């Protein structure tokens, strides 16, 4: 018997005659965390989907415990002991949290196949226990519909971990959660390791990789570049293997003279979401909002943008109050919002890259309502080039893109609208190091051009590196405001986890 828990040998995969995986080898030892890294579109998720039986492979073999396996459906992979936390969150919105957690493996009173009676109480209890073990505060009776992106991601993590699998694939499990939950996740991973579970860990966050990985495999453009132990691979070396050139992961902060107040929020209130929030943002400024999961940051910016209606308070743009009742008004006032949940609010997955990117700006690319296709194509191509979006063609459906590239499409769509005030909610979610740097540079450029940037991020180093000022939220309230000269991880965490009201 082989020492490996899992071996994938010589895997090939093409879509429409384009090779996206070329002779890939990958293996996993029991009790090991094997990180899989690579640029957006390198083929990480596709390799894992092949393992799960979601995609079929064109060539290659897969061995589990030394025996060849061939999964045609995720059902087979699951019953063979492989579980996955998917990169794209695709929850069943009208289900209760507990039900969702146990879908496909319901807890039943008796065993009578499909007509077994579901033990709803036991599921709720079990869910509660799981949440308690992992320190997550979610009511198992709530509908999935009412959860934030971060909470859904936590549910997915718990779902996969609770499956008692031999192999757990984690495809960017931390893209939406904050440091607090990441710590809990790592604790769980360490527990699983002692039980001999093998974990495949995909992430673009280098700190996480160096903290948790035992071995690292790098992919680039669908090709295997190398595998080595974590000790042998420095951060710089990994990045060089990934992108083929060196990237210094520093934050290219540019000093900009601050201009007039561009956006002012006064006493904004939405019951149960956030309470009487006031702040202002100036031209040329990059303002960060820090907070934990469920702090209400996303709800706040969505309200500013007119997606939800506030119950109290006002929003002023360049000193003039605007009536926030529809995003249309915000867009007319040259505000852009890069939303957090790309599949739910950022993209139209049923259409092409081109049509997604041009959508907000469409009426400006048209005359009397008739679209100027040449102009549209030109503008979109510029954006695709600028953000280095990897797609077969502009006419590719956006859901065939890798997660990171989808995120870039959302960015492209909003940047094309030439906004003056740019609000970004977790803009670098799922984006590789190289591209992140591009986005950081872009934010700098925007600030330099006198635009105002409001940025929510759960990656505190990112905020520290880019912002002029950071405000913190906790439990729906503003808990602190920190100028650049006082930035430190500890200070921000302190305010972000502060629950008492600051009067």
């Amino acid at each position, binding site marked *: 018997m082989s020492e490996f828990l899992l071996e994938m040998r010589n895997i090939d995969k093409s879509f429409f005659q384009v090779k996206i995986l070329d002779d890939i080898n990958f293996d996993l030892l029991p009790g090991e965390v094997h990180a899989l890294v690579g640029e957006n579109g390198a083929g990480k998720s596709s390799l894992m989907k092949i393992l*799960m039986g*979601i995609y079929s492979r064109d060539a290659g073999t897969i061995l589990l415990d030394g025996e060849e396996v061939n999964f045609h*459906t*995720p*059902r087979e992979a*699951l*019953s063979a002991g492989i579980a*996955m936390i*998917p990169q794209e969150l*695709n*929850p*069943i*919105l*009208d*289900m209760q949290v507990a*039900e969702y957690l146990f*879908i*496909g*493996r*319901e807890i*039943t009173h008796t065993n009578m*196949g*499909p*007509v*077994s*009676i*579901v033990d709803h109480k036991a599921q709720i209890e079990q869910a509660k226990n799981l949440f308690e073990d992992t320190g997550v*505060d979610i*009511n198992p*009776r*709530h*509908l999935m519909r009412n959860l934030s992106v971060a909470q859904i991601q936590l549910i997915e993590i718990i779902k996969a971990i609770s499956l008692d699998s031999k192999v757990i694939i984690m495809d960017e499990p931390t893209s939406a959660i904050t440091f607090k939950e990441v710590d809990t996740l790592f604790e769980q991973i360490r527990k699983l390791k002692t039980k001999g579970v093998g974990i495949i860990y995909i992430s673009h966050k280098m700190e996480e990789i160096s903290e948790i990985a035992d071995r690292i495999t790098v992919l680039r453009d669908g090709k295997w570049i190398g595998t080595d132990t974590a000790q042998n691979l420095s951060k710089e070396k990994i990045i060089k293997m990934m992108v083929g050139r060196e990237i210094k992961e520093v934050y290219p902060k540019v000093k900009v003279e601050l201009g007039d107040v561009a956006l002012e929020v006064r006493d904004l209130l939405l019951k149960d979401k956030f309470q009487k929030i006031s702040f202002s943002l100036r031209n040329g400024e990059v303002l960060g909002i820090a907070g934990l999961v469920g702090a209400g940051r996303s709800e706040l910016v969505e309200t500013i943008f007119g997606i939800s209606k506030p119950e109290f308070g006002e929003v002023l743009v360049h000193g003039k109050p605007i009536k926030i009742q529809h995003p249309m008004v915000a867009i007319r006032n040259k505000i852009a919002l890069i939303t957090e949940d790309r599949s739910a609010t950022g993209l139209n997955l049923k259409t092409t890259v081109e049509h997604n990117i041009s959508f907000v700006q469409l009426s400006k690319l048209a005359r009397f309502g008739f679209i100027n296709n040449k102009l549209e194509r030109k503008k979109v191509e510029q954006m695709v080039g600028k953000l280095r979006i990897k797609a077969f063609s502009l006419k590719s459906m956006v859901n065939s893109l890798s997660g990171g590239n989808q995120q870039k499409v959302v960015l492209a769509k909003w940047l094309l609208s030439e906004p003056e005030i740019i609000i970004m909610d977790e803009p670098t979610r799922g984006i590789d190091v190289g591209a992140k740097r591009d986005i950081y540079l872009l934010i700098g450029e925007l600030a330099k051009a006198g635009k105002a940037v409001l940025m929510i991020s759960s990656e505190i180093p990112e905020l520290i590196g880019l912002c002029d000022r950071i405000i913190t939220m906790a439990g729906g309230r503003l808990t602190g405001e920190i100028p650049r000269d006082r930035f430190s991880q500890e200070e921000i965490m302190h305010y972000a986890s502060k629950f008492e009201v600051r009067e």
Partner: protein
Amino acid sequence: MKTSAKKKTLKWNSLRELGILLAFIVVLVTLMILSPTAFAKPANLLNIVKQASINGILATGMMFVIISGGIDLSVGSIVALSGVIAASFAHPGEYPLIVPIVLSALAGLAAGVLNGVGVAYGNIPSFIVTLGSMTIIRGLALIYSKGQPIFGVTDEFEALASGFAFGSIPILVIYFLIITAISAFVLTKTVYGRRVYAVGGNEITAKVSGVSVKRIKIAVYSISGLLAGVAGLLLASRIVSGQPTSGQSYELDAIAAVIIGGVSMSGGSGKWYGTVIGALMIAVIGNGLDILNVSSHFQLLIKGSIIIVAVLLDVKGKRNQ
């Protein structure tokens, strides 16, 4: 804080679900006021439930299909096919009563299985599969019966859907209750039921969670077909003949009952009692307008308006919560 949130959700959920019930009660009370002697009589109220039964049975099957994210247009044709089959085996002195019963149910089931296979394995939109089978099955019913109604069934056969149980409760109502009870149980309590919701809620996620989506789909169309077969049998008994043209546009009424009851056309949500209320609502409107002797042309006007207004009340009720 946690518990208060919980309470709120519960209260909100039940109110939300009551929306259509309230609308139903409004319609009911209005009719009772307009016709206190005829409409409000207990005998008439039972009569209404009886008249709702066949559509209610179809709607129950339809509910499974719609919750799973599909649609079944073929139920009306299945009613006709299973009706003519049942009647043709119910002539006096030929076969025992069980034969038409079993054969008509089997015919419905077979049609449903084929629909399910078409949707699940053929990967064809359910609208097309069942539109096609609606046409095909209607053709079969006409060919089987040579385009003529089949008369001359036994008294026992006629008694299947006529007659009363426990004194004055129409037997059709009892069938409807039993079928509803079983369906409600399957939908809310069993693994299968939960998976129907999952498939309708998000097929890909259901698949990734290890649910055999194909099997669930075949099962929902089979249930719908089987229940349509039963409905066809009962209708044939009720009209004492098998008519190849019966059941026309029954699918619309069944879908309407389901949607009025708050099941979303896009699948994944909805409650069984909504469907019951939806079926009752349709029957109540028809009965009330007949009793009030509203002229046929105006009946159409009023029927359409009540349906829209009822659902509007439901939707507004939900939103104001």
